[in-house]
Structures are given as structure tokens and as C-alpha cells.
């Protein structure tokens, strides 16, 4: 019984390490892309005012907004220019990251 416990414990930690390794690259890509927005939109999208808060925004909403900025359908002062710098895949990754951030 004792041995089973230790084995399970070891398995859990290996599982943890593998999970971290597998997700590290993708998780950090979204985080790193999102960080290019946050000097205007606040750390992790928690705007301190005057710009749209991206933290906790549903991914689809951010992706849709960026599409409309790119096409010109949504009026903008600067976002029509910045949105054109990112691929759809990159926008999806940053949207994923922001959607998981706490609002406060």
C-alpha cells in the first residue's frame, strides 16, 4: 500500500512535468503576444482606465474585434494600424490568454 502511494506520487509529479513541458511553448506564446498589448491595455489586460480592458474578455469577442479593426468595419484611431501587424493565429493565441486573466 505504501509503495502504491509513492508510485502514484511519483507518477503525479512526472505527469506534472510532462504537462508543463507540453503546454509551455503554447502557453508562453499567447502570454508573450498578449504582452505586446499591455502597455496600453494594462498588465494582463487589466486596464487602469481610458482603454478597453482585455482581461477576461471572451476569446471570440477579441478575435471578432481584431477582424473588424483589420477590415475597417470598426472605427479606430490606432487599432486599425496595429491589428494588421498580427496573423489570425496570433490573435487567437492572445485572445485565449486574455480570456483566462482575472478582471481584478
Amino acid at each position, binding site marked *: 500500500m505504501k509503495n*502504491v*502511494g509513492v508510485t*502514484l*506520487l511519483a507518477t*503525479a*509529479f512526472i*505527469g*506534472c512535468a510532462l*504537462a*508543463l513541458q507540453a503546454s*509551455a*511553448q503554447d502557453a*508562453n*506564446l499567447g*502570454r*508573450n*503576444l498578449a*504582452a*505586446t*498589448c*499591455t*502597455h*496600453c*491595455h*494594462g*498588465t494582463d489586460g487589466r*486596464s*487602469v*482606465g*481610458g*482603454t478597453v480592458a482585455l482581461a477576461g474578455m471572451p476569446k471570440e469577442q477579441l478575435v471578432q474585434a481584431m477582424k473588424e479593426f483589420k477590415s475597417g468595419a470598426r472605427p479606430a*484611431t*490606432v487599432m486599425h*494600424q*496595429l*491589428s*494588421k*501587424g*498580427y496573423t489570425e493565429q*496570433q490573435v487567437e493565441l492572445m485572445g485565449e490568454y486574455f480570456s483566462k486573466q482575472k478582471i481584478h
Partner: protein
Amino acid sequence: MAHAYKRRDFIKFLAAGAATSTLAACATAPEMQKPIGRVAVIGGGFGGAAAAKYIRAWSGDRIEVILIERSNLFVSCPMSNLVLGGSQKIGDITMDYAKLRAYGVQVMRDEVTAVDTSTKRIKLTRSEDLPYDRLVLSPGVDFMYEQLPGLNNANAQESILHAWKAGAETVALRKQLEAMRDGGVYILSIPRAPYRCPPGPYERACLVAFYFAQAKPKSKVLILDANEDIVSKKGLFLKAWSERYKGIIEYHNNQEAKDVDPRGMAVKTDFDSFKGDVLNVLPPQKAAGIAAKAGVITANNRWCGVDWLTMQSTANPDIHVLGDATLSASLMPKSASMANQHAKVCAAGVVALMTGEPVNQAPMMTNTCYSYVSDKDAVHVASVHAYDATEKTLKPVPGSGGLSSAASELEGVYATAWARNIWADTLG
């Protein structure tokens, strides 16, 4: 909630074989670990302070971070021209480092005198030597007074100001402008690019002119630009000058200051001498002195070359260099936005190198740079930069970025929002 588990319960929980047990193990793992190393950050400006914060956050507090800054206050260069124009006070753009401590950043008020890169130790004025595993240098710029002989002494520098590092000089220059007679001439001398904040001098001309138009309308702003043309936002500034400040602002290109005469109150160029009542001379700039002491100056005896994947110095992989001190990539301005973006690429790189995670091979950076043309109206230039693996540098993404179509009050509101958010992103 993970914190509430006792170790015995924790093991019991794992033994129960719950599939979610890996999550609990991941959540509690960092608490069991000692710091995996120490990063020293020299310079608490937009680059260094943000790097310190983000290394703590992105390492899950596993990396010890010590931020060394000589001042106990952070005075923002962006927005400081509004202090000269009179619509903001110095207190509005002054902050401290208290909130960084909540991230576990250890803030040391001290002055670095030397860096021993072979033993990886920093020598300080007040404290004992500080050993580090990795060093982040965000030193800002120094002025090359040797290129302006008349200004190359402390006395002259007390009366002929740059105010290109916000703080005491910003306040002193504002006082000089207030004391100037109506009908006086304010001379703004701009060095050859690259220098800190490319549109900054032209914004300053607007805001000094804004003040003159209200308080002393017979006065003039005389711009002596060492460059062949207006370096940034040319059309937008020319429009502001001709429509808002007609008869106040006078612009001369190709007029590089070669010397300054503090007694005669004159700026001397190759063939001319310009007399003024207030001289505001921006000397040529280079990476601040500590960069040379650390041996990371690689270009023209002035700037620090970096590997853009991690911001590691091309001269020393133990040292990361950020902000205005770097040899800028193509079309990358020396701006607060860029320093903030350097800080994040650096933080990701430092954490990856110290934990053995893969280094991001596709870093991106965005620049959003606002300039006020009056107390309320602003314009911007924006760009998005992506890493080019072939050329090993960041390049603007084709089709992205651009300028304001016209100055507006809405952009003035966004400029203030940008400032508030980048201050918060930098200082916690």
C-alpha cells in the same frame, strides 16, 4: 485553495488517484522550491522596472530580482513636455517604486560604480558587492557634452538645460520660460538621430509655443535641427505649426549645434550663430556610462548590440540590455513603448534561460507613440515589429502601423490613457 492542504492530506489526495492531482502538484510546486537564481537589474526606467516586474511574474516568483536605481522617484519623460507647456505639474508625472515590492522585486536605492563581469559582481556606492547570475542593464542615455565645448562644464550645464531626462531640469526649464520676457526667443537644438524619443523635440516646440501663444505672444520658438528634415510625424507637426502656431515657430534644418556660448547666449552651427533668451540644447546621446563599464558597447562607441530573441548583449550573453541604450533595430524608435516591449522579450528570455524552457523564436513588439500638439490634442505613430529569423532582427510587419490622419482631442485622451497604463504596467 491549494495552500490549505496539509502535506498528509495532499499525499492522501494523490493516493486516491484523482486525475486532477497533477494540477494540485503543479500549483504547490513553486512554494517548495528555493530561488533558481538571482537577476540584478540596473536602471529603474521604463525598461528596467518592467523587466524586474515581469521576471518575477513570469518565473512564478522563482527568480530573485534586485532592481538598482539611483533615484527614489520615477519621473516620466513621456508627458513631461506638458509640464513645460503648463497644463501638467511635475507631481502629475512623478511616481515611486513601492508597488513593485508587491511583486517581490527588491528595490535598492544605490549607484553602480562598476560591473565585474568575470566574477559576476556589481560594485555599489552604498552597499557591499552584489553577486548576480544574470544582469539586466537598462541604463538610458548619457549626453556627449564633449561635442559641445562651451557646454562641457558643470556651470554651463546649470543654465543651459536639456530637460531630456524628466525631473529637476523639467521644472527649471519651465521656470526659465516663465521668466523670459514677451518677445524673447526660445532656441531648441536637436541632435542628429538616433536620440531618445524621435518626435519629442517637435512636441516640445508645440507645447512651448502653446504656452507663448497664451502668455507671451510676441515670443518665438526657434528650432535648430541637426537633421536634414523633421525626424518623426513630419506632416502632422508642420500642420500644427502652420495652423496653430503661425508666426511663433520657426524651423531650420541642417543646423547642427557645434558649440554653445553660455555668456553670449548663442548656439553656434557650422556657419551661423543663433542668439536666444532661453537655450534648450539636446546634446548628442549614447548608451549611459555603465554600459561601457560593463563592456557591452558594440556600435560606434555609442550603442549596445543585442540578440533580439532574448535581449542578450552580443558582447556578453550573461547581460541583457534594454531601452534607449540598445542599437535600435530598423525603424525602431528609442521610446518608452519600445523599452517596455524590450523588457517583456527580456523577461521571457531570462525565465527561459534560467529554467531551461524553450526560448521564444518569434518575438513581437508594438510601438505606440503619442505626441501632444497642444494641451489637449495629440497625434500618434504606431508600428508592429516581428522577428525575422534570416536577418536576426525585428522588422516592421508590412502593411501595419501608421500615423494619425489629423490631431484630435480623442487622441489626446488616448495619449493620457496610454501614459497611465504604461506607468501601471511598468511600476506595478
